[in-house]
């Protein structure tokens, strides 16, 4: 198992972990930094200050309970639908490729693509604001029509893993072999 620290497109630090289970099975997982306590406290404090200000203006205590409700619901929604803990790519030779994204609340979203549908794994370029970023994607083919590309599936979408071309190339060569 090997691990390395890199930077995401947005600038945050992410960790890439590579594991090899057997000759034809490998897993690549990208981990995001955890939810920071200070950002959580900052958000909560700002919401509650605003609610208290409204309460002072309107003298309606419903505002305070509404603020608590909003904070709780917002936190649950954020943890369950927005905050990604880890994204992993499991490559099983001759079976297929599986992509899992796990959220901070424990929810896991899995997609499995069979090997017969995978045409190739490539590195694509995209222009994002003022820079060019490279991202991995899988080219899918219709098994009945091996010469056409039916879909392009970008990998590691949520984490926006990006760094030098070399690292992507390493993953690509590993996957293709």
């Amino acid at each position, binding site marked *: 198992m090997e691990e390395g620290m890199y930077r995401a497109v947005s600038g945050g630090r992410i960790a890439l972990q590579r594991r090899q*289970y057997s000759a*034809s099975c490998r*897993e690549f997982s990208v981990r995001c930094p955890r939810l920071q306590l200070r950002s959580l406290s900052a958000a909560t404090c700002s919401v509650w200050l605003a609610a208290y200000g409204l309460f002072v203006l309107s003298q309606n205590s419903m505002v305070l309970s509404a603020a608590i409700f909003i904070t709780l619901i917002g936190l649950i929604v954020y943890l369950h639908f927005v905050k990604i803990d880890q994204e992993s790519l*499991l490559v099983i*030779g*001759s079976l297929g490729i599986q992509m*899992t994204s796990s959220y901070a609340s424990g929810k896991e979203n899995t997609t499995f693509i*069979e090997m*017969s549908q995978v045409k190739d794994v490539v590195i694509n370029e995209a222009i994002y604001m003022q820079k060019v970023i490279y991202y991995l994607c899988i080219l899918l083919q219709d*098994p009945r029509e091996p010469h056409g590309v039916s879909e392009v599936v970008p990998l590691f979408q949520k984490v926006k893993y990006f760094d030098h071309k070399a690292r992507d190339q390493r993953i690509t060569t590993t996957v293709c072999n």
Partner: protein
Amino acid sequence: MVLKVFFPSCCATAESGLLIGRWIPEQNSAVVLAVVHFPFIPGQVKQYLSEVQRVTQVNMCVLGSWSNSKQEKEEVLDKFLEDLSTIFSHEPWIQLSKEGDSKFWSCCIFQKYPSSPKEHEFILVYYDQRKVMLSQLHPTDSLTTSADHKGNDASELGAVFDTVAKSKVLFMTDRYDDGPIKLTHWQSEGVEASIIVELMKQASVPVCVLLTFLLSLVSSVCKSRVLKFWPLSFIWSKLSTCEQLGHRLEHLQIISSNRKAQNQTQLMRKANIFVSLLIDVALGILLMSWLYRENRIGQLADTLIPVADHIAKELQDLLQWLMGVPAGLKMNRALDQVLGRFFLYHIHLWISYIHLMSPFIEMILWYVGLSACLGLTVALSILSDIIALLTFHIYCFYVYGARLYCLKIYGLSSLWRLFRGKKWNVLRQRVDSCSYDLDQLFIGTLLFTILLFLLPTTALYYLVFTLLRLLVVVVQGLIHLLVDLIDSLPLYSVILRLCRSYRLAASVKFRVLEQKPGKPLRLLMQINPLSYGSVVQTYRLTSYACYPKDSWSSLCKKLFVGELIYPWKHKEEKQD
């Protein structure tokens, strides 16, 4: 070369024996369905397999041997198992062996004519046999037509699911049977069945026959010539209640048909229709029990007449306002008075008609409310029809205003062309220049001026009544949308997704289990269920929804020109 073995997790503790299942040569994978135990006679095993193969159409054979030794490796057993490979010739012969309680099995292959000298790599995939058997794979649209497992391009997972699902007959024998073959599979502890389900299956046959007979009576009455005469057939086509009743009749006919469902889609459709009808009738009865309590029908009837009166009074006030100086605009006095008086007389007629009906309203409502027991959708359709009847005068006013405005616009456009010296060529469907005589030009210009200065009055009446009509149309549309929602929501599929999510599978997911170097790769295959959105989309019942058939731009154009609009036209049945 990679060899994949799909092994059912229920057979992991089985005694030593033979592995039977299906070998898929294109994908180099073996799907193990059961384990045959000692003692057995090879001839009987072969006979049994060919029988099962005939019934299930699955290419079943003996794949290899399975040895589960509680003590240390037994040499004698190994030799015996190798000899078996000569009796049941299968290329390649898979040998799985498990020692004691170890999690890590060893897998080797025995080939008479080794095709490639390379080392084989093994992948052991555990799967839950019962869940895979019951589940239905929903591939994405690119692979929807690969239902035939004969083609080489069939999806591998589809082949695995197909194999297990078709081998139901194999799972019917359990260890308490006295047959010559002893099998281990998911049902070998005893065949599962529910007595309630069996009783219901037996009872449903005569019930279906009775229902079919009743429905055929009802539909023959409906189709009789008496009801097809012109005024009646026109009324039936306009009333949404009749349409809704017709749909429900069709649904009942689908459920009560004697033919068994051919495939999964038809079965789910029948189940969805059944659950939808049940919920509909339950909600309808609930509504009925609420309505008939505390004389609510009487209260409703008592408030209906005052409400109708109130609407008429509001309309009269509106017309008085239009006949005066509406919003500061100065109307043409004479035309204003004519139109206003005409509409006021209409309202007077309508009010007298309502007052004529008032003693019978309560009785009519009482009997009409009884029809809510046919379902909530029927009750809502009746409500929509009652609204349509009560606002019939608004519809009439809209039609008058629209026709007048339309005529005026056409006249204006034609005279405008005359003004500029052009003419509409009907033959060539285009505008041509034309030389008019002086008297034609004079009269044309005069009429044009008259129509132009009378335009604001007509336009204002048209605007007011169109807005009222649109309001009524929007309310009716909302009711119809609700009815359509109840009609087409696949409740059974959604509940199935909630409670037995493995039955509706979108794909699978693999989990890598503990590994030991030197042993085959161990994976666990689990079912990834469909998302709720795709469940609703896949299993939606035919919707008879009346979506607006015009886009916004064409609607605006029609409004401007004065054409009559029917935005909620019932379109023809939408095929799934």
